[in-house]
């Protein structure tokens, strides 16, 4: 008897529930089936974005090393110009890679050895003076990578003639050489890992756990956008986190006229990953955007793109040298920051809620 009663209740529940489901697809936030293929998304991001970008970057760094070798052998103006131009090319490509702090890159703290700025010139000078240093040491993270080379090529003396004179010194040559060589070897380590084994591990890691590639990638993506791009490139120099503006915290401080370009490249890189656009070309594949669309959240995907576009326009309106922008008209700089900030909200609140990823930084019981 009791079994029959419970059976009836259960059947009633199921009927009730099913009858409710018919008219619900149009409901608010009514994602239906999460049939999204996460492996396809990871494959697209790995094969069409990350690995091609590493390939390009690796070529850039080979060029940088060659240009550096020439310059160290013969420190003249034309070799300096060639070296600077290789450095700039590589720096732009780097903007497409900094956000992928995953796998080997995370293990060896790659991005902390490539682009910590402002660089610490007194550490650099004391390293040069002593001639003995361990560039892989954490304490030297702010004395290596692109910002250190920026200083070595533009800031080490007052003008080009003086800079060339500086490189008469073997210690300066050695330091420049060692820093550039380390950038190349670190990059090769990460790139080789991607092409040899990590790519397959990466695309297979689709579980919803704190350590899976799919979740780490989205967490890293948002973290990079918020910290590496929004705060480091725009917010901190504009003084939004301090009582006064800090113009000398811009990226490429010594080169001066490329900080806007680098920020725009970084934003483009972020938007391309969001939309799944290939590094070489304009073809697009599975991405956060199509993931949101599968969840019936095209409205949110469009909002995120429009917020990226607004931020891009704001950035384009800035001086090529963000340091000049901060000192002449910081309002434009903070407006650009505010535009970038709006996308943080969409990514961090709305997109994360839609994906409901297990976040890697909160470890506690829930209710």
């Amino acid at each position, binding site marked *: 008897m009791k079994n029959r009663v419970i059976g009836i209740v259960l059947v009633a529940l199921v009927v009730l529930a099913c009858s*409710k489901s018919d008219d619900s697809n149009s409901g608010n936030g009514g994602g239906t089936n999460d049939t999204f293929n996460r492996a396809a998304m990871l494959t697209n991001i790995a094969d069409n974005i990350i690995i091609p970008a590493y390939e390009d970057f690796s070529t850039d760094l080979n060029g940088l090393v060659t240009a550096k070798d020439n310059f160290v052998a013969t420190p003249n103006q034309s070799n300096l110009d060639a070296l600077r131009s290789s450095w700039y090319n590589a720096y732009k490509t780097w903007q497409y890679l900094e956000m992928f702090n995953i796998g080997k890159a995370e293990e060896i703290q790659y991005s902390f050895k490539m682009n910590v700025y402002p660089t610490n010139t007194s550490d650099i000078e004391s390293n040069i003076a002593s001639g003995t240093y361990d560039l892989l040491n954490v304490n030297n993270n702010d004395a290596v990578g692109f910002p250190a080379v920026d200083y070595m090529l533009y800031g080490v003396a007052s003008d080009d003639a003086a800079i060339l004179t500086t490189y008469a010194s073997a210690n300066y040559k050695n330091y420049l050489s060692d820093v550039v060589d380390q950038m190349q070897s670190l990059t090769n380590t990460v790139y080789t890992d991607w092409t040899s084994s990590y790519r397959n591990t990466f695309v297979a890691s689709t579980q919803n756990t704190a350590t899976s590639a799919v979740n780490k990638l989205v967490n890293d993506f948002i973290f990079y956008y918020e910290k590496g791009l929004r705060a480091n490139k725009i917010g901190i120099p504009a003084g939004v986190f301090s009582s006064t503006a800090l113009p000398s915290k811009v990226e490429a401080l010594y080169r001066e006229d490329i900080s806007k370009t680098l920020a725009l490249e970084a934003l483009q890189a972020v938007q391309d990953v969001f939309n799944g656009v290939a590094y070489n070309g304009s073809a697009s594949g599975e991405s956060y955007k199509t993931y949101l669309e599968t969840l019936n959240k095209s409205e949110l995907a469009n909002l995120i793109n429009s917020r990226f576009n607004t931020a891009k326009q704001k950035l384009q309106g800035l001086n090529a040298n963000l340091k000049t922008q901060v000192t002449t008209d910081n309002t434009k700089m903070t407006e650009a920051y505010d535009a970038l900030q709006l996308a943080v909200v969409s990514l961090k609140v709305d997109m*994360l809620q*839609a994906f409901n990823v297990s976040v890697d930084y909160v470890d*506690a*019981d829930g209710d």
Partner: protein
Amino acid sequence: MNWKLNTYLTKTTSAAPLAVFRIGFGLMMCYGMVRYWLKGWIETVYITPKYHFKYYGFEWVKTLGDYTYILFFICGIAALLVAIGYKYKYAIIAFFLSFTYIELMEKATYLNHYYFISILSFLMIFLPAERYFSVDAYQQKKQYAIVPNWAIDSIKLLLGIVYVYAGLAKLNSDWLFKAMPLKIWLPSKYDLPLIGETLMQQNWFHYAMSWSGMFYDLLIPFFLLYRKTRAVAFFFVVFFHVFTRVLFPIGMFPFVMIVSALIFFDSGFHHKIIEYIKKGVSKISELKPIETIPFYTTKHKSIILPMLGLFFVLQLTIPFRYLVYPNELFWTEEGFRFSWRVMLMEKMGYANFKIVDSKTGTFFYVDNTDFLTPLQEKQMSFQPDFILEYAHYLGDHFTSQGHENVEVYVKSFVALNGRLSQPFVNEDVNLYAEKESFKPKHWILPFNDEIKGL
């Protein structure tokens, strides 16, 4: 009526269920303390943070630094003593105080089931749970086989309140007609074996889970009370809680509820458990037979009973306090806690604080990670009382750093149950000048939607 109540209060029943409950509760709490310690959460939750969120009225509660470990140690030992029934009254009081103190130290870790443990252990102070099959009883060489009915019924009533109120809270349009938040949560379990890519992705399944969850909560206490449905109901208790444990990171709570639900079974079942434990114990030391006195009379009955009456009146009314607040409960969370609103909504936020010098107009933004742990920041970002408390902390901090004429503003956005995020707090209100109180918070912006229901 009064006569009926008096008759009820003189009813008696076997002491065995209460003794088994005491043992189960004590052991699980002891394990809970050990688990918390081993996970390293004492460090990350109570010691590492620079700042701790406090409950309104309990700002005086101090964190203890490394001594927090001692507090957890005391709490774990007290739980163990409760289990074996040694110096029970002192043990359960020590457990209640230490556990509650731990919870009061950090509001960001609020969970309904911690609150449940606190009030349950408070209730147990007044119950004769050590009168049967306990070390106390063996030491006094006498035990009581029969206890007042109300002692066991009060635990059943508390469990019933938890379930029924959790069910009532689900009677809202988001839960029933949008299957929210399960529609967000369940599909993300795509990597579960077998059901992950299939059931978890089905629209009808989200609705089925929402509706059956609601019916389960509302009805399960009654099916447990009724002898004929009890066994099947208990099967559902086990199934439901194990299933939620698989789906959600809810720690020990499911097991606490499963073990607690055993109290609904009659004494024969509990005697079997006790016999089983006795066999285990007698392998270690021989249990000397002691005198069993049939009936236990409650001391201080005139204090304890009105006290329990008041306790339950409060338990029944506190969850409804939200009715005196004008705005949407899910949005403002005024009256949300301590009401068995369990796993009821998916809410995320982002709060960006701005420190302004009111004289010069200069300002800067705060990097929350400078002050808060990720857990604290997450909780702070969508709960108004946290936002206000943190604004005051920031105001005090920057004033003490030498900043002048400090005002604190916040730009914040909150997304509730899959709706697009909306501005949450009025960004033109200087929160540093706002005081915490039980009054409605005028600086919370209106919720641009409606959630119907209780």
